[in-house]
């Protein structure tokens, strides 16, 4: 059997907008990937546990609330504690450009802004894996 790329799409924190996350999930599925979607309002603990149990190749975080600089460090910390900081993490949503550098320093591999073609995300993931 062939290796399939498995991606976790997660929405950390309290924002209730998941149109973007769902579009990405569907786009990745159509690119032949297996996409685990966890639903809204996930805690860092839930996200990391899902990533561990599902043994995903990539984690995609979608956030529109502005709490990324608060939530992402917690997620990265817990991934490390779980011994899975080898999983590449990417992010999307409403994330001001001023914060991109800070997130990259945290270990987030890429930040995709609204309007990014799905093909670009697919390509990035395939390169990463």
């Amino acid at each position, binding site marked *: *059997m*062939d*290796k*399939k790329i*498995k991606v976790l799409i997660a929405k950390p924190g309290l924002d209730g907008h998941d149109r973007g996350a769902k579009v990405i*999930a*569907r786009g*990745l*599925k*159509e*690119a*032949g*990937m*297996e*996409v*685990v*979607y*966890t*639903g809204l309002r*996930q*805690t860092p*603990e*839930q996200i990391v*546990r*899902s990533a*561990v*149990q*599902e*043994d995903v190749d990539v984690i995609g975080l979608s956030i529109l609330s502005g709490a990324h600089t608060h939530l992402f460090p917690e997620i990265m910390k817990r991934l490390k504690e*779980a*011994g*899975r900081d080898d999983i590449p993490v990417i992010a999307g949503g409403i994330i001001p450009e001023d914060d991109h550098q800070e997130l990259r320093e945290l270990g987030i591999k890429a930040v995709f802004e609204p309007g990014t073609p799905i093909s670009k995300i697919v390509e990035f993931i395939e390169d990463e894996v």
Partner: protein
Amino acid sequence: MTKSVDRLYAEIKKGNENSIARAISMVEDGTKNALELMKKVYNNVDSAYMVGISGPPGSGKSTLTQRIVQLWREKDLKIGIIAIDPTSHFSGGALLGDRIRMNEIATDKGVFIRSMATRGSLGGLNSSIYDTVLIFSLAGFDYIIIETVGVGQNEIDIVKLADTTIFVTVPEAGDEIQAYKAGLMEVGDIFVVNKADRPKSHQMVLTIEQLVSFKEGKDVWQPPVLSTNALKNEGIADINEWINKHHEYLKEKNLMQANRKNVIRTQMINLMEKDLHEKFIKPILNDEKFEEFIESVYRKDKDPYTAVKKLLSFD
């Protein structure tokens, strides 16, 4: 056996989540080490009790699963969940969304949820599902729930693995009764009409009761028809009670062994089909000659029956 496989085996036995997750990925991808690992696992463990949960999309399977698991967790039982969603025949991808309805148990240390895609449905049941059952059993889980959308033959094969199969439906599913009669209605050991607060749920219970009452005979299991409201946590204790009753029935009538032998039969057929596909069919599909054959069959230079025999070198 390689050292890394031995180490992995030991870590799974300790319940190490990273190792359990890694092992499942290995069997899904069909790696060489997976084969070594599974040989050892098979020889050393017996499968934990398997409960299958099936039913149409949106009937509340994942929510019910969560409720049943919460009840079992009160007794400190450890649970492994395999949540299966279909692979797209077009892209080969899959959207695995069962976790959305299991958030309340997502961080419980005694619960392991793994989403799986049906993947290569060529040749029926994906053999890695039973492998995952065995890995969970090695890790010491008391119950294993296999949850799948009940729509076709693949799903029937999956629920046939389970010792007890629960078929979930909703009051509005009445029109589809005809379809159920032929397939999943026959494999359910327990029927559940979920969302029982909705109108006509009593009618649905009666309809299913009539359908299943045709099973006659002294020793034949008579499936109960239960009504639940998974969101409000109503009727869950009934399900648990009936799972136990069915388990007792299987033990009393010495049917556990027969069931498990059937599982082995199915798994062996799966493995044979997988090997045949990998060794014989896949190389043909990847060969340019195959496209030429299609072309000549299309032009009616050849007929497909002779062409296939030739491709497989039977003639």
